[in-house]
């Protein structure tokens, strides 16, 4: 076992990127994501890579677009308002099928908001904040080790599917320090590189583009993307179950709030309430499969979210509206406590208990 | 001895070549190409000096010059 070190969430992401062979980072500072560019500015050059602070977030995502077209591993990171600025670029990356890794350290929104954690960019991340019918693969780590492991894997997934991958964390996970084992990255499989542009030496020239001159061609490309997204839906749904097996009620939550939810599950169990947790690790594709065994079995579900109810729609669809699904939410950078979530679960599902 | 050749599939009948030729060496022909343009053809061929001015100005690289 590699010795654990204590690191900030953002720094862990940065270190994982280096370990994954990321050679280029283009970014623009924004709290609470800035430690990522700062850490990389210090350490990536030593690993033979380049960090460039771009003129803005649009410049950064465009540089990623260019660098990814050459087959290089490339990353950018920002936080909510900065991610909004990248939406056109992300749509282009998805359309040109470029493997870019993007980190969003979700802060409070809309507008300038505050620096606290929120999960208010769930829709933007999973349904496509940019124009057109594209999807990002969205990973939602919830602790230090996972920040490390999933960041490394994000690069492989991006290469495998030729699709941008979004790592969605929040101001809490980004700023928090926890021990992490900086494991060496397992070897990556070989990826198809027959599409990259690096000078047409001894081969036919290649073009990276995202337009269709005719509607017929446009439809064909859209169908190709659709097929890819279908494959992703089949193969890449990920989640963690925690005391779900025999649960009467499920909490569904990801990232920071999923951790609080775990404590709630334990507290509930101590009180005799059969509560369990499903923690989506991929937000897109949403782990619908996780809900299959439960949709006829459980009596109800609660999503715990740092927004006014976004993931709840996907949970309802995954459960086919077979059981009531409630929302417990805190907003504006506030985090729920174990006690208030448990109280909500009790009030909602076991109103008798309250009196005790 | 010089000669110009107009690649008619490229020509769009903009007539910039005609305008620039000091020898009156080109004119609009009467054939329409696949894209719907009447194309330019050489005329007064013996006068052509191969100066390439027409080719230099052709926006569609439709002219080859031989000398």
């Amino acid at each position, binding site marked *: 076992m590699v010795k654990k070190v204590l690191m900030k969430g953002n720094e862990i992401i940065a270190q994982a990127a280096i370990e994954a062979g990321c050679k280029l980072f283009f970014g623009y500072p924004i709290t609470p994501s800035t430690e990522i560019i700062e850490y990389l500015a210090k350490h990536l050059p030593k690993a033979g890579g380049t960090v460039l602070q771009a003129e803005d977030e649009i410049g950064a995502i465009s540089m990623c677009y260019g660098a*990814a077209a050459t087959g290089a591993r490339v990353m950018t990171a920002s936080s909510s308002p900065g991610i909004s600025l990248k939406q056109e670029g992300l749509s282009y990356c998805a359309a040109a099928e470029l493997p870019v890794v993007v980190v969003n350290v979700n802060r409070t929104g809309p507008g300038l908001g505050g620096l606290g954690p929120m999960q208010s960019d769930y829709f933007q991340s999973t349904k496509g904040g940019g124009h057109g019918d594209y999807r990002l693969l969205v990973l939602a780590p919830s602790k230090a080790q996972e920040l490390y492991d999933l960041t490394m894997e994000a690069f492989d997934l991006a290469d495998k599917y030729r699709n941008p991958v979004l790592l969605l964390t929040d101001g809490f996970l980004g700023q928090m320090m926890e021990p992490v084992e900086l494991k060496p990255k397992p070897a990556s499989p070989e990826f198809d590189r027959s599409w990259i542009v690096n000078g047409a030496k001894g081969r036919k020239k290649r073009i990276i583009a995202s337009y269709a001159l005719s509607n017929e061609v446009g439809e064909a490309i859209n169908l190709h993307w659709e097929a890819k997204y279908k494959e992703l839906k089949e193969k890449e749904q990920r989640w963690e179950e925690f005391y779900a097996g025999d649960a009467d009620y499920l909490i569904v939550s990801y990232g920071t709030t999923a951790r609080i939810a775990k404590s709630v599950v334990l507290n509930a169990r101590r009180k005799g309430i059969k509560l369990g947790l499903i923690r989506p690790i991929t937000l897109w594709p949403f782990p619908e499969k996780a809900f299959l065994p439960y949709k006829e079995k459980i009596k109800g579900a609660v999503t715990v979210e740092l927004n006014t109810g976004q993931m709840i729609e996907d949970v309802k669809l995954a459960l086919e509206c077979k059981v009531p699904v409630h929302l417990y939410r805190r907003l504006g950078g506030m985090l729920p406590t174990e006690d208030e979530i448990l109280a909500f679960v009790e009030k909602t599902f076991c109103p008798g208990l309250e009196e005790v | 001895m010089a000669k110009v050749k107009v690649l008619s599939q490229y020509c769009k009948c903009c007539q*910039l070549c005609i*305008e620039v030729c000091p020898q009156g060496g080109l004119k609009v022909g009467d054939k329409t190409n696949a894209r719907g343009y009447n194309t330019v053809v050489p005329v007064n061929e013996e006068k052509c000096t191969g100066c390439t001015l027409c080719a230099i100005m052709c926006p569609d690289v439709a002219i*080859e010059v031989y000398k």
Partner: protein
Amino acid sequence: MEKVFGRSKGLSGTPFSFCPGCTHGIIMRLIAEVLEELDIIEETIGVSPVGCSGFCQDFFTCDFVSGAHGRAQAIGNGIKRALPDKIVFTYQGDGDIAGIGTQHAIHTAARGEKITSIMVNNALYGMTGGQMAPTTLKGMKTTTTPYGREVEVYGYPIDLPKIIAALDGAVYVASVSVDTPKNVLQTKKAIKKAFRVQQAGLGFALVSVLSTCPTNWGLSPQESLKWLRENMMPFYAMGELKATEEVKNL
């Protein structure tokens, strides 16, 4: 007889998609010839903009990347940072580089990014049907300045090359025209130098080329060249606006 003028190896056989008489075609041909003459077709990655020139990837024989409107330089910077030994150039309309892309134009130049940019200035947005561009001349009618560009409302035209020349990272800036055979040859020289600057790794190079848009100007190709000569050339600073000592010694 020997062929003394023909299609460059830098060009694919695809016919240009431009309107009759549009000088975009002349400029692309010149770039292709330069790539061939410097023997860098296989080393080069072009970046295309959105605009009439947006389909240029089909016309060249080198690799190409096409991105969003205005972002060609930022994309080019990303490519060059990933492949510092390759040659990267952007081909952009005036709207693309001096309108929506100004942000990247300024910072690309300030950073001295080692790429070459060709700006094609036809004083309006051609592709979208002839709207005002930042380069539209005073009083000029476009579809969004139907009463002529009134500077009180719409502001003054921007001479981007002049601005770029003032930035430390730009080592070569030239403003040229393709209105006559002589100027076409001049333009080719400037383009060639701009690529040689990149080969030598000296910094950022920009060549702005005044170009026509017969369709949206509502003029014949011939009249368009004349209009360009009489209206645009007097307004825009022409010639080599900047060449550092190192560039001069190339």
